[in-house]
């Protein structure tokens, strides 16, 4: 039975990465109304910058991690102002923003490839905590604990921010209708910038932690997280952070259990079938709220 619990923990840790990434992706979709194809590159770049900070500048774990996360936030900010702001002035059009996000995805992806010399680097041994705790007979690497803790902290933080603060109210207002929000005294430009930064750094955090635990700092890291994070957002309901977090963790556990007890060939198939099922039967996801639209 130990094997089951071991895999359960692996699933929760993996799911925490998907959840963390999904939170960033979900905020952009809920508040800014943009299906951002470039979100994956924020994670890859966060890992690359964190690695550079750890390796060249010999920063210890936490400062290197924060450098990567802040870098991802800044990149998200730049992409928002360069690729989305010009379109935003012409009215909310998801198709246009989707295409410019594809353009940024192509640019940032190939730059990430050049930055890592097209191979998959990994964090040198000493730069991250690697003690192995034991829960009874079950090995529990500290990085898994950190990942799960980070996910829970970010989820709670975002939930409080969005639901219980003035800035959160402003974010939701901008999400509903930018012009109406600005009439209500909200400065949409300021809200958009901060939201883009938060979304970028959240996905960036998933990137750095993912880069460390999977020994894979490359442009492929972002793409992997992107597809699974997208599924977490849809299944969990994009306008409720708790939904995305729970759905992300559930997807991680489902994935690990499927490859353990069924076959890993079907693993991705089940995740995407679940995604399609939710889209058809319950588009607003597990926790999303019904949106009223008057004729």
């Amino acid at each position, binding site marked *: 039975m130990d094997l089951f619990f071991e895999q359960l923990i692996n699933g929760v840790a993996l799911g925490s990465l998907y959840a963390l990434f999904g939170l960033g992706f979900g905020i952009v979709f809920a508040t800014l109304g943009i299906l951002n194809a470039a979100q994956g590159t924020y994670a890859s770049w966060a890992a690359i910058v964190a690695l550079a900070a750890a390796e060249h500048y010999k920063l210890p774990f936490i400062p290197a991690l924060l450098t990567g996360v802040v870098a991802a936030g800044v990149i998200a900010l730049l992409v928002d102002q360069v690729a989305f702001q010009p379109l935003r002035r012409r009215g909310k059009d998801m198709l246009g923003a989707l295409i410019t996000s594809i353009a940024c995805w192509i640019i940032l992806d*190939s730059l990430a490839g050049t930055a890592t010399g097209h191979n998959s680097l990994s964090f040198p041994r000493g730069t991250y905590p690697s003690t192995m705790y034991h829960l009874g007979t079950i090995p529990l690497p500290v990085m898994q604990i950190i990942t799960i803790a980070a996910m829970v902290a970010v989820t709670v933080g975002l939930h409080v921010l969005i639901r219980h603060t003035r800035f959160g109210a402003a974010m939701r207002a901008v999400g509903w209708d930018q012009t109406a929000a600005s009439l209500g005294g909200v400065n949409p430009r300021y809200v958009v910038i901060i939201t883009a930064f938060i979304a970028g750094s959240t996905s960036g955090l998933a990137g750095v932690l993912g880069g460390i635990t999977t020994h894979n700092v490359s442009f492929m890291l972002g793409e992997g997280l992107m597809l699974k994070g997208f599924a977490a957002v849809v299944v969990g309901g994009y306008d409720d952070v708790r939904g995305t977090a729970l759905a992300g963790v559930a997807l991680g556990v489902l994935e690990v259990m499927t490859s353990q007890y069924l076959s890993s060939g*079907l693993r991705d198939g089940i995740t995407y079938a679940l*995604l399609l099922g939710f*889209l058809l039967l319950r588009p607003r996801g597990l926790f999303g709220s019904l949106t009223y639209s008057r*004729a």
Partner: protein
Amino acid sequence: MQGLWDFWAAYRSTLAFAIVNSFLALSTYAVLSAGILSFATVTYAAFGGFLGARMVLATGIDPMLTLPAAALAGAVLSYLVALIFLRLESHWMALASLALILITRVIVINIPVVTGGVNGMSVPLPVSLELLAVLIALAALVFWRLSVSWYGIAAQSVREDTAVASSLGIAPRKIQTIAFVISGAVGGLGGMLLAGALQFISPDTYFVNIAFTMIAGVVLGGSYHWTGVIIGAAVFTALPVIAQAIIPEFQDVANGIVLLLIMIFLPRGLVDPRAIRLRNKFQLPVAQAIKDTSSTKLDI
């Protein structure tokens, strides 16, 4: 002459891929012109491509017959997709079609008897440039006929304002289902032609990368007129080749930057009928203009 012939021989395959991409872009445009953003064309293409290739390998029939078969297969599949997906709101439709692509790849990997599974399969369908030219001309004729016929007016109405179109007696679900079937047929055929051009297809041939290429091509060319779509697809196919000639190591970055600039400065794409008509408004013949202003007395 020799140089010209070499240049032509060198870039024939680029032209062939431009035409193939135009089919996939037209398939995306078919549903977009009825107000639906859907990436499902990739699934029709995969279905058409693998089915057609396997038919030739298994039954040895004349490869030319696989083209209508692939189009038919695409159309049938898209009809089923329409039945399920048309209940969805617009941006959920886009997300569902993205999920459909991901699932398609998993299915393709797990049925090796049909698709050759992980190893992929060779495609014995020779696709000559002449055949492609004839087929794209045919497709252009079809889309021209569609745009000038009653279907064209109905589709544009549904796209611009579904509620108003419905209040004029235009059944949105019926029009959009027709749009799906057209998209499926063109997508299936496009998938088969892509297989023919590549001579070898694997699970990664029909995946997210061509979905984004198609959408970018459609929007780049202009998603409001079918000619724009073909031009957009051609430009988007030629971009990497041109970029490769200029700055080989940064060609991907160049592609991205060009796409970004076009989207920002030409949001409605290269071919925008509305802009053309707006310009026409100011070239009213002088006589007509005078007549207009003088005859505004209202006789009931």
